[in-house]
């Protein structure tokens, strides 16, 4: 391809056997074939029931015992404390401070990745839940009654978590945008944000109750718990159990605001992937427009990024709503609101696919730092070597550009096929006649193809 004089060297860095855009075509064909395979072979809902198989009573009791819960909670509180302390008192170099990698890579990416396989792993380690429960238990022991709480406003649903999710990503990629390092936010700012969030969360738990707030308003519980619904393990009625993969996702979106959470996840990942690639020139133009209006450089940059992040949110919501509108045209369709809520869970694997595709390589590289020099020298001041790994550096040759690209393509294709599968299963609930169910799913096929091609386009430009 060297005979074409490309203006800005947008040619891909990988050495792929076919052009990147052909992967989008191939992925679309895979989705279409999967769609027809589902139509032909899947004629009754299979995922509405979790098919729970409880583990033995002794195993469950040991795993869910009070000492085990206290231990997990204490680990969570300790690690949050270390991150905040490192942020406040450690180096200001973002890539040498434990706080940023731990909060924004190990936790922010690790919990979704592993919860999607094993179930909600964050819940037992949630430091705020642990503190809230300990405070509630202490209150009950002293006062002789459980602490009173206000009823949670039903209409508020998961909206606080959705706003919190946007705020977390905004803090990382807009407020902390500096380029050149994995997470550009100043460690001190991250620690202060964690402290403010801790105070806010504990106050909300005191007002509405620990479990109610974790289920609806606590950003990290809701966000990580959402991915945990894809996993194969869960806890119900005090028993630890195995379930059919993805089946728990079908009951996730019954609370208002759930759609906003999953759409915010896809939108923020898209924005982060696009800001240095697909949206770069548009962002630069808008930035200059704000600067020309007399705004400062930093304010203009943050305002521009904020606008584009919100546009991504609106764009993803629009595509999803168009798909739902299309489904409404099929005879026998429920009302729009029910349809929109009923298919929200089909976006969860897409949100996960976007996360894996965009951050898989970052996770692999930064975890070498996490379990290398950051673990031995959390403050990054060079004064400690707790585990003798302070000189372990990141091996950036661990993954080739081609390997990263193939993982990205595979993640997007698999995520969208699972999304199609969940949508087909739910359609069979609303349209027991499988022909009508299939007709309704043409629209979700269009949504999935659109998200797949959009995701691959973002990645191909970002990798270029």
């Amino acid at each position, binding site marked *: 391809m060297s005979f074409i004089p490309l203006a800005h060297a947008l040619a891909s860095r990988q050495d792929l056997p076919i052009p990147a855009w052909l992967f989008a075509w191939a992925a679309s064909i895979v989705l279409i074939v999967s769609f027809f395979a589902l139509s032909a072979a899947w004629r009754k809902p299979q995922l509405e029931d979790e098919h729970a198989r409880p583990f033995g009573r002794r195993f469950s009791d040991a795993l869910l015992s009070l000492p085990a819960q206290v231990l997990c909670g204490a680990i969570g509180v300790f690690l949050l404390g270390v991150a905040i302390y490192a942020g406040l008192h450690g180096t200001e170099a973002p890539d040498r401070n434990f706080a940023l990698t731990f909060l924004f890579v190990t936790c922010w990416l690790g919990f979704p990745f592993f919860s999607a396989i094993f179930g909600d792993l964050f819940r037992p380690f949630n430091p705020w839940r642990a503190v809230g429960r300990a405070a509630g238990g202490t209150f009950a022991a002293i006062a002789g009654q459980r602490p009173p709480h206000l009823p949670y406003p039903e209409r508020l649903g998961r909206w606080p978590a959705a706003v919190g999710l946007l705020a977390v990503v905004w803090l990382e990629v807009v407020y902390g945008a500096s380029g050149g390092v994995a997470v550009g936010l100043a460690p001190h700012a991250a620690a202060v944000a964690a402290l403010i969030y801790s105070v806010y969360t504990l106050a909300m738990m005191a007002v509405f109750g620990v479990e109610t707030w974790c289920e609806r308003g606590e950003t990290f519980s809701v966000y990580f718990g959402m991915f945990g619904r894809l996993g194969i393990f869960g806890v119900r009625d005090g028993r630890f159990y195995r379930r059919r993969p993805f089946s728990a996702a079908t009951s996730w979106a019954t609370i208002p605001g759930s759609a906003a959470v999953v759409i915010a996840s896809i939108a923020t990942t898209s924005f982060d992937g696009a800001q240095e690639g697909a949206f770069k020139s548009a962002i630069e133009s808008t930035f200059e427009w704000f600067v020309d209006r007399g705004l400062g450089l930093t304010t203009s940059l943050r305002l521009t990024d904020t606008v584009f992040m919100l546009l991504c949110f609106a764009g993803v919501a629009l595509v999803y709503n168009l798909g739902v509108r299309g489904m409404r045209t099929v005879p026998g369709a429920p009302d729009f609101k029910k349809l929109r809520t009923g298919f929200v869970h089909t976006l969860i694997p897409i949100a996960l696919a976007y996360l894996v595709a965009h951050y898989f390589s970052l996770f692999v590289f930064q975890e070498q730092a996490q379990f290398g020099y950051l673990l031995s020298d959390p403050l990054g001041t060079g004064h400690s070597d707790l585990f003798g790994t302070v000189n372990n550096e990141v091996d950036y040759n661990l993954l080739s550009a081609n390997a990263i690209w193939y993982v990205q393509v595979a993640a997007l294709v698999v995520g969208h096929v699972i999304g199609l599968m969940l949508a087909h299963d739910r359609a069979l609930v609303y349209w027991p006649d499988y022909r009508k169910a299939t007709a309704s799913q043409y629209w979700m096929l269009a949504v999935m*193809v659109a998200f797949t091609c959009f995701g691959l386009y973002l990645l191909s430009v970002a990798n270029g």
Partner: protein
Amino acid sequence: MLPLAHVAHYLWVLYVIPILIVAGAIVRNMATQRRLAREDAEEEAR
């Protein structure tokens, strides 16, 4: 030499084509369904 200096700016078109094909197929399918339904209704009316 062909004036292809900025061709990479239009690569997104290649990513839109599969979406257009699927959307086109859906619209065509819908039109066919409606036509068949209309013909059935007319036949019943006769």
